[in-house]
């Protein structure tokens, strides 16, 4: 089915013509590569940030909190899934604007208004809003599966709390953490709403270019070329993430045997 969808997209042209000119046009345009770099860095930054920001929270809920608190926490994490991301993004826009809530609060303390939308900061806030609940949930999921005796053992062996986290908890939850980060990269890389609504398309990312290619002369084939480039990139990134996880596991199991 997936193959089929691709096939139809590539052949959906106003004049059925099979040439490489679309590929050449897109791949030789410098703005495409600028947008590519921007999308990649934005999504990468977002997935690194969200992983780091979410981890302590998931750690607390997964390993420190009582089962009751954990359950409530998990339910609270799921709650935003039931509100539209589009609405949340537009609300952020109003909140972060020059006359928004945040700048009003900063104003009380005598700060000048800070520009927080129509730039990378805005996009990143959007990405974080998009992926934070999912990442929290996945991290919580893999952290709560850890055998707590492992951590106790580490403590008993004289491991400080931070060492225990780094040497025991993180490796044990590695699959989940990397999976969550990969998810957030995939979602942020393809997200149109954050860079458009909060980033002001200034400058554009690949997902915005796709929309613009269609707008400018119904260039579905050229848009499809960008889409193929995006899919190939994401497959590479996800494969790399999988190799990181499973490759690591293999090494571990060898160490376990020796």
């Amino acid at each position: 089915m997936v193959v089929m969808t691709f096939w139809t997209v590539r052949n959906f042209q106003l004049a059925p013509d099979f040439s490489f000119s679309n590929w050449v046009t897109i791949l030789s345009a410098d703005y495409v590569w600028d947008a590519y770099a921007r999308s990649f860095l934005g999504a990468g930054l977002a997935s690194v940030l969200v992983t780091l920001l979410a981890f302590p929270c998931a750690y607390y809920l997964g390993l420190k909190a009582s089962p009751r608190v954990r359950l409530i926490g998990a339910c609270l994490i799921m709650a935003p899934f039931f509100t539209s991301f589009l609405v949340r993004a537009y609300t952020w826009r109003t909140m972060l604007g020059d006359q928004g809530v945040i700048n009003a609060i900063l104003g009380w303390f005598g700060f000048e208004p800070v520009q927080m939308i129509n730039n990378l900061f805005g996009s990143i806030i959007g990405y974080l809003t998009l992926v934070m609940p999912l990442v929290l949930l996945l991290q919580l999921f893999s952290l709560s599966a850890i055998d707590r005796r492992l951590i106790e053992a580490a403590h008993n062996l004289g491991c400080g709390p931070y060492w225990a986290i780094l040497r025991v908890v993180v490796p044990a939850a590695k699959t989940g953490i990397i999976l969550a980060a990969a998810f957030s990269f995939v979602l942020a890389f393809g997200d149109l709403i954050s860079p458009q609504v909060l980033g002001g398309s200034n400058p554009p990312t690949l997902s915005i270019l796709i929309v613009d290619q269609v707008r400018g002369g119904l260039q579905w084939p050229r848009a499809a070329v960008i889409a193929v480039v995006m899919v190939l990139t994401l497959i590479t990134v996800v494969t790399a993430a999988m190799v990181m996880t499973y490759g690591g596991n293999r090494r571990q199991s060898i160490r376990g045997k020796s």
Partner: protein
Amino acid sequence: MGLFLLRSYVVLIFLFIFAPILVSFVFSFSENRFPSLPLTEYSLVWYQRVLDEPAFLDSFKRSLTVAGWTSVLSTCLGFGGAYVDYRYRFLGQKVYVALGIVPPMIPVLILGVAMLIFLSRIGLSGAQHSVVIAHVVLCTPFSMAINRLKLSQMDQNLEAAAWNLGATPWATMRTVILPFCLPAILASFFITAAISLDEFAIAWFVSGLEETLPVRVLNLVARQSSPSVNAIGSFTFTMSLTLIILAQLVLIVSQRRSGRNE
């Protein structure tokens, strides 16, 4: 002290998650056509507006139906797919997995048009079930990944032990694997339902005249900038939160009861 800091941090993260929801909740009660500060008079006009449109309830019901079917089907397919990948080694397994994860990576605009063309070629476009099909394709990879994660946490010997004890594959599945994967199955159920409930770009193309709620919300927010969406959002959010709390209460009560029985 460390724990206190950690707790405050958790609160901070939750604040980040809930800030836009709470603010849109506040805006939904403000009369102002374009949400801005300072807040104007308190008013229920946007709720009134939403309830006055007969199409709103239709699209809401439709979305629930679509999300229900999508979550059930993609969780089944996702679990099946994950299990096949976990249990068997076969030729082209990498391709199989790669194909399985591709749909969410395709930009939605392209996926939407492709789905429209594909579905209308086989005569299934333009209705609720088309959205279900499109959403199953989109959601299954998420379900597959979550289930695969859980399966990889399972002790490989568990299944073999069950077979050794004479359980048929089906009984093993039922009594060993499914219970072990239950949290993952539930999580994937929720996540796929959530994705489906929030997806508008593909649904716009394939739903034809049977619009789902997110498609309506898209129309209202992106083109008309109407605060009705805050009312819709608050409405659905309150409802889902109520459901979650109810589920919690049921869970807690049943735990207490079973605790007493023990």
